[in-house]
């Protein structure tokens, strides 16, 4: 299985390392021709404004939309989630693929960045008979303010804030599974997203 990681800027190497550890063939994507023959794409954390400028300049927007419309799984973490969204309430280049409204820097500035254990039932793993939480790292993170009909919520904070969601072959997380040793989200992406 060949998975691309958008490598315009951000923590793409961390995703590549997790994918390779799971036995997938991971490649860095900076140019449109590097999107050919991919079985899926991850858009990493980083700065979404930087992704937008470079994606337009190097002609990546339409080829990524085509990959998504062909049913290939696409996952955005943090800035990647922003880049996937249809609406972020401000003018900024977006892929506009996922029917969610996202708010950037939603929890405040860096001093408000946090770690927390989340319950993610879709990962369906247990530890000593209890559901095993997913340790999530939120860095100047976005949140999902509202979702369209086709979108399924995968994880929420205690106050109901949506921080992970799926729409068919699209996956979005506010947080960074690639910064932890827990590979369950990457396995979920490889094994289940994009499969009907």
């Amino acid at each position, binding site marked *: 299985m060949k998975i691309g990681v958008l490598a315009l*800027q951000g923590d793409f190497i961390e995703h590549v390392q997790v994918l390779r550890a799971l036995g997938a063939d991971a490649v860095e994507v900076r140019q449109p021709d590097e999107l050919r023959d991919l079985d899926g794409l991850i858009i990493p954390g980083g700065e979404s404004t930087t992704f937008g400028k470079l994606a337009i300049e190097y002609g990546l927007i339409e080829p990524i939309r085509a990959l998504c419309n062909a049913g290939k799984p696409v996952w955005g973490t943090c800035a990647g989630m922003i880049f996937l969204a249809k609406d972020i309430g401000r003018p900024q280049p977006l892929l506009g693929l996922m029917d969610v409204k996202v708010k950037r820097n939603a929890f405040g500035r860096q001093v408000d960045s*946090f770690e927390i*254990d989340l319950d993610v039932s879709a990962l369906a793993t247990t530890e000593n008979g209890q559901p095993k939480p997913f340790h999530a790292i939120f860095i100047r993170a976005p949140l999902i303010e509202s979702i369209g009909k086709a979108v399924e919520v995968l994880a929420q904070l205690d106050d109901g804030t949506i921080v992970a969601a799926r729409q068919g072959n699209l996956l979005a997380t506010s947080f960074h599974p690639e910064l932890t040793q827990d590979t369950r989200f990457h396995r979920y992406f490889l094994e289940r997203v994009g499969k009907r």
Partner: protein
Amino acid sequence: MAEKTVGTWAVKVGLAQMLKGGVIMDVTNAEQAKIAEDAGACAVMALERVPADIRREGGVARMADPTKIVEIMEAVTIPVMAKARIGHFVEAQVLEALGVDYIDESEVLTPADEENHIDKHNFKVPFVCGCRNLGEALRRIGEGAAMIRTKGEAGTGDVVEAVRHARAVLGEIRRLQNMRPDEWMRVAKEMGAPYELVKETAELGRLPVVNFAAGGIATPADAALMMQLGVDGVFVGSGIFKSGDPARRAKAIVEATTHYNDPEIIAKVSRGLGEPMVGRAAREIPEKELLAVRGW
């Protein structure tokens, strides 16, 4: 559900991980900050004078006026960093209170303490610090720096010192990797670095935190040179807003940093950028005016 924890090592180092492969630009007002963001900068460094002007004008260089920093924070959505003097932990407290996203404990400002750096573990906000070699990098990490950069020689537009410092750090890491574990303690003693960090660096084959280049980067090719040498991203100080066409040069440096292994793209973005910053050869600067020797 569990409680949120803030100010942890993982979120401090994590923000630096999000900046990788990007360009952090020095800006002195909201208008420059917008230009930097529009060019694709992954963060900006808010300061009152760029290093080239600090060099020219002399005097004591301090933390920027909070009004200036807040103006810049309000102008952009990307992370905003700001500089505190070496050892000036109250300037750092002020910057944390303002809500800046990263503090640069910087040799570009006039040091407030010639013996001690800030105890950076005491803060929720993360710090980046400069270094000339691996020992210095690991001492700063030991004090709590969550990101490292080369010192280079700021405000010169001469990349030679940044190259020297990056080669020193990365070369020393390569040598460490070829050592037996029973040699690490001797290295720790010689470098004046914490043993645990020497061990961690040897095992990882890289610094335990993100490592950027800074100090003298002025062109797209300079940025790509530093990336090919093995740093994670670049700071550009005076090189952008002291040049003839800052918006264009800023965008070109961003593209060269992303496509650092593609000479055709670097050639394309390097065309017709207008006047680069005038610059001054680092070699011709008198000893007492060097910035990189500040701190230890």
